[in-house]
């Protein structure tokens, strides 16, 4: 009796280990959360300085078209971020729109049309594309795409269009591999049922497979957009870095990320120039939050439909 009593009432080695493991995981989790909160807090704090201590109005910041933080006009520095915002959105949307048909086509090839060769050849190719560092993409863009655009459209060759082509190659593997996941999660039974009803393979793909996979494909597209929006180095190398409104696709322009990468090393902490860059970073952060939110919304709506 006493033996049982004793063994039940003393904490065993296993339970101690269990508690220790729990504490370790919680500490790690807490650390990560702290880092995330700190990043948000810091960027928000620095980013809002432009509006609090440098007296720039938020509206002027978002709609102004002149970016020259070292020059003051009417008591406030010239920090109109619209050219960069427009540049970022234009490049992101153009690159994604260009990538969608290629990505879906490639993904269908891998899941439905030639699954064997598709997975044997295209899968490694895609993984390779993901693994190439962005500076290499930028370099290729600089030496191949920019001169090509220069020859075809004239001008310097730097601009939104060059950025679009470079980003297109960079987001293609992201969108494709996620689309593949979504297509292969469509039950095989759907395909069999559709074929057994006298549908052709194309009708099956178009009416059943793509339709069932739509939420997943939308998520893939938003992920691709998020990647395009956040890409800095490769874009900076080909976009021209002129903080002007992008009135033409082949004229030098800039994006939020390209201005940040070119500018952040050349400004002094605490100056207006530096604060303005932090404000751009804040916009980037808010945009990636928005993309994340969109992904969750799509996933939830997709889940409800099922």
């Amino acid at each position, binding site marked *: 009796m006493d033996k049982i009593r004793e063994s039940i009432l003393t904490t065993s080695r296993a339970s101690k280990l269990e508690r220790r493991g729990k504490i370790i995981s919680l500490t790690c989790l807490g650390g990560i959360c702290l880092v995330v909160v700190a990043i948000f807090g810091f960027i928000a704090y620095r980013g809002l300085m432009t509006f609090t201590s440098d007296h720039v109005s938020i509206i002027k910041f978002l709609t102004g078209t002149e970016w020259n933080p070292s020059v003051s006009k009417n008591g406030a520095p010239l920090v109109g971020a619209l050219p960069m915002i427009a540049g970022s959105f234009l490049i992101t949307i153009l690159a994604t729109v260009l990538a969608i048909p290629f990505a879906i086509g490639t993904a269908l090839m891998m899941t439905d049309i030639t699954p064997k060769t598709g997975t044997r050849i295209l899968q490694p190719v895609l993984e390779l594309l993901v693994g190439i560092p962005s500076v290499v993409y930028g370099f290729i863009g600089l030496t191949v795409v920019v001169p090509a655009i220069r020859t075809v459209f004239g001008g310097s060759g730097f601009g939104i269009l060059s950025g679009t082509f470079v980003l297109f190659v960079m987001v293609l593997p992201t969108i494709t591999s996620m689309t593949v996941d979504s297509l292969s999660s469509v*039950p095989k039974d*759907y395909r*069999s*049922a*559709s074929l*057994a*009803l*006298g549908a052709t393979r194309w*009708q099956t793909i178009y009416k059943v497979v793509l339709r069932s996979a739509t939420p997943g494909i939308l998520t893939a597209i938003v992920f691709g957009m998020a990647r395009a929006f956040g890409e800095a180095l490769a874009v900076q190398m080909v976009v021209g870095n002129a903080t002007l409104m992008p009135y033409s696709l082949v004229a030098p322009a800039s994006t939020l990320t390209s201005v940040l990468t070119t500018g952040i090393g050349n400004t002094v902490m605490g100056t207006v120039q530096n604060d303005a860059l932090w404000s751009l970073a804040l916009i980037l952060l808010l945009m990636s939050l928005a993309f994340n939110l969109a992904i969750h919304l799509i996933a939830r709506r997709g889940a409800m439909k099922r």
Partner: protein
Amino acid sequence: MEKQILTTKNVKLSYGDFEALHGIDLAFNEHEITALIGPSGCGKSTYLRCLNRMNDQIDGVNISGEFKLHDTDIYGENTDVVELRKHIGMVFQQPNPFPMSIYDNVVFGLRVAGVRDKAKLDEAVQTALKQAAIWDEVKDKLDQNALALSGGQQQRICIARALAVSPDVLLLDEPTSALDPHSSRQIEATLLQLKEQYTIITVTHNLQQAARIADRTAFFLQGDLIEAASTKQIFMNPEHEQTRDFITGRFG
């Protein structure tokens, strides 16, 4: 003698080096239910899927033998698989309605065949759902997602979907094995009504089910057709020892 609608002779099927069917001779009478029975892996489902050429998609499959729907060669050079499948419909083991409305599910086959006339589609939906004995349960929610229905209802939607194309032959691959006994009984009752208009070939693991609904039964074993006769004869007085052993549950 009844009219034979579908005849097969010396059907052989192999995946690479492995022969799964060793020469099956089997014919199906019009407006009858034929049950294919046998232990798992005996080739009955494989054989069934040859009839509407569902095995065509599988890599490395080799099918030989003579398949005739009425007098037309199913594997003939000029045979259009897509057209063929409109004459020989199929219902699968797992209820697999598409993730769309009940209405869209039922008219799927007609729409891919190019029917656009709304009145025609409406009528086809009603007829097919009535034939599948599920009209009363779903008539008020045709625009609801078919996946919201119960398993048994989903399976009957799948039957309706196959019927909407008005096939001559309906193939069923263990249609009730994923369903509860009550839903299974409902499907069986539906099939018995359907044989007035269709020829039904069903694979089943449930011997009682074969005994309840089938006019004729064919017993498969390891890629061979051991015996095919009227259900009564198979269950009461089989010719072969192996059939008797299987029916009485000595193996399988």
